[in-house]
């Protein structure tokens, strides 16, 4: 991250490179060295882990986009987003199995079922997220900024307990319907369909979202509201409706991530949303919060970091340390480059 910051100053003004930038460069250098050694030692594992990382990153991206959309417009960390994702996973399991009677080994019938589930879950999660905004955030829009942050934590806890009351404290299992057959095999590394499906779903959603935000009237309203609520209200934008819509979209994205996660990982538990939400938030910050492509980039990076950490053999800290590593990245980013990789410097970072 710091390498990016120092890139323009490397050539002409070398002496102005700050201490933190040097530390960052050394850190990135060590990271690259570590990855390189791993690649040389076990190339097969490396590529396999890389592919897993991309897949996880896609799920993170969908959740991270929810954080970044909401933060972009309200400057609020919607802690509940991760739990909306968790509920999305539970909705996915419930809808698909008890409404559509989904089970393993059904053949091509699963395609319309999964699509119908996806639509239903996205609608439900979008509505939940918009309701949270209406109940817990809107009345506090003029309060000090701590107030909505506190209610966001409260909302997150309530959603967790809804999940707990609904599905109990154990893992809920989804039918393993995504095919595990190989798309291609290169040098002993197989890329399976279930991973590809996640990517195949995420990419069009991202493009659609970019189109929505940058090309449509609604998107224009969102961007205007994010820049200046008063001015956009004077231009005739219904600010409250726009914010509700943003939450709806964010919730729907989290819901879709929940569906993918439920069918890809096949287990969901009530407290997974919060952890994953924090990781996704880190991804959003890494990419530059408020910046949509940044969120995706950050999510892919975090997904890769997590996969490398958990999957590589040579001196990898292992899954015990994943959270520490992710949060260290979060802290380092916030301290040294608060605007993230692709974001613009704001007074917030100051």
């Amino acid at each position, binding site marked *: 991250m710091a390498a990016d910051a120092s890139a323009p100053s490397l050539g002409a003004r070398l002496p102005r490179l700050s201490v933190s930038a040097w530390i960052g460069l050394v850190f990135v250098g060590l990271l690259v060295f570590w990855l390189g050694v791993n690649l040389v030692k076990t190339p097969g594992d490396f590529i396999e882990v890389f592919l897993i990382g991309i897949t996880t990153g896609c799920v993170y991206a969908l959740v991270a986009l929810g954080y970044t959309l909401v933060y972009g417009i309200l400057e609020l960390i919607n802690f509940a987003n991760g739990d909306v994702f968790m509920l999305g996973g539970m909705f996915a399991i419930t809808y698909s199995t008890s409404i559509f009677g989904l089970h393993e080994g059904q053949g091509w019938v699963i395609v319309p079922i999964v699509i119908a589930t996806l639509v239903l879950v996205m609608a439900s999660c979008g509505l939940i997220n918009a309701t949270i905004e209406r109940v817990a955030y809107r009345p506090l829009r003029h*309060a000090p900024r701590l107030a909505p942050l506190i*209610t966001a*934590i409260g909302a997150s*806890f309530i959603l967790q307990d809804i999940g707990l009351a609904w599905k109990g404290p154990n893992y809920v299992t989804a039918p393993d319907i995504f095919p595990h057959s190989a798309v291609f095999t290169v040098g002993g590394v197989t890329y399976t369909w279930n991973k590809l499906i996640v990517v195949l779903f995420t990419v069009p959603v991202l493009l659609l979202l970019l189109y929505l935000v940058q090309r449509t009237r609604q998107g224009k309203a969102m961007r205007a509201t994010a820049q200046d609520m008063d001015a956009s209200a004077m231009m005739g934008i219904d600010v409250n409706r726009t914010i509700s819509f943003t939450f709806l979209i964010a919730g729907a994205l989290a819901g879709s991530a929940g569906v993918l996660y439920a069918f890809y990982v096949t287990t969901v538990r009530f407290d997974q949303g919060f952890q994953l939400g924090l990781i996704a938030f880190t991804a959003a910050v890494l990419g530059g919060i408020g910046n949509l492509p940044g969120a995706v980039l950050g999510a892919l990076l975090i997904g890769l970091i997590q996969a490398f950490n958990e999957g590589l053999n040579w001196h990898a800290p292992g899954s015990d340390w994943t959270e520490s590593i992710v949060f260290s990245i979060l802290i380092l980013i916030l301290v040294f480059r608060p605007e993230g990789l692709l974001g613009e410097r704001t007074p917030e*970072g100051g």
Partner: protein
Amino acid sequence: MTQAASVSAADQIGFRNQLRARWQAMPELERAAISIGIAVAISILLFFVDHALAYALLTLTALYWIRKLPQFPHKLIAQALLVLAYLVAGPRTVAIVLAIGFLMTWVPEGTPRQIIYPVTAVFLAVVYPFYQAKMFTIPVFGSWPDVATGVVMILFIMMAVGLNIVVGYAGLLDLGYVAFYAMGAYTAAWFASLQFSHTTLHIGAVGIDPHLPGIHASIWLILPIAGAIAAIIGILIGLPTLRLRGDYLAIVTLGFGEILPQIARNGDSFLGFNLTNGPNGITPLDSPGFGNHISRLTGGFLPANFLQCCNAKVLGHQIQSTDVFFWTAMVLLLFTVFCSLRLQYSRLGRAWIAIREDETAAAAMGVPLMRTKTWAYASGAFFGGIAGAYYAVFRSATFPGDFFFNISVFILCMVILGGMGNVPGVIVGAAFLAYLDREGLANTGAWINSNIHVGGWRPNIDVPLYASGIYGVILIVVMLFRPEGLLPSRRRAAELHEGVHDQPLWDVTQDQAHFDEAGVEV
């Protein structure tokens, strides 16, 4: 203009204030009659719940008015009433009635409430072990909390008062307070257990075999050390991150709050060194005590060893080691509250409040932002560390599972429920929530499950399981309807109601009524 001003003044009066004005205009005897009447009515209702409560209420009301009305030889009557209350109510509620009545009859007329209330509260709290077992049962909530629960409650109150310095005074949202608590607990564990058994180092430790391996320090050293280490961690966390504003700071503290417990969890082979004993935690810890020497010097008043204590029977109460832990915790709490109150209006405290209200303006007035915020962090962390250390010593164990994010939010919830920035409020909020956490939720759940039934349906809810959801509801409800908390500080309340942002042009619907009124009047 004048008309508008008078109208707005009338507007401010409202129903409650009108009622209060009429109340104050009444002759004193009439007021006495009314309030005694109300007390009688309530105590008739209370009679169905608990006899003693009803007697206590009646006695207290009568006492109050006897004190108020100068024409009575009030002290004598008051004391007679106490004796009567004793005879009628029986020994169950006697302790509390006697305590309050005693204080009321001996406090000189004109003592400010700011002194009477805290002194009464402290007195009642200190003698709690004596009357805990004799107390009546509260409807729904069940019996009064154990003394052991009381110790934990006091420690949570300490942490809430510490967090209040950060959140309430300085207005910095700290979502990782549990890290300081963990730091304190592990400091105590390192300095008073067999954890580092490859060395043998005894620093003033009393009551244990001097050849025991490991580091053993006296608890009276450990507490300040734990506080200091937590404060140093606070400064280390604060220095790089306090430049960030508001929610970025919150998320960074949350990150630290997640990292430190994970280090504790994975620290059983930290580069080949067993630092924290991993998920098994460090246990047992040395029992605290004053040692035989001091104990003998004070005639056995200060126990040599908390766990091997005590033989004394005072006022019909067999003093147990839990009681000693309770009183020690009480002393620590009083120290914390004293520091917190003294800090509030000190130069530093005023700087904190200035930063909370407007950081830019404070900086422009010459408040050094970084240093002031770092001090807030360090002071908050200090008390968190002490509380953590004492908690570890009290339980004689430290487990990484105790330091989840939920605890941070739990403590934050106490501060918010009680009233950010107001120490008495925070104490009340923390005591209530800590009680709920330890006993209240379980008792309430048992009551709900056994007493509520609709037709043939009976609920079977494991209420404590949903504790965090209940805290979530509390957070949201309090922030929406009473952001200043139950017992607010007036200044913070004004701030939270006025808000810090300018009133936006596009969202006038909320204040439509206000606008119209103003328009009509002008």
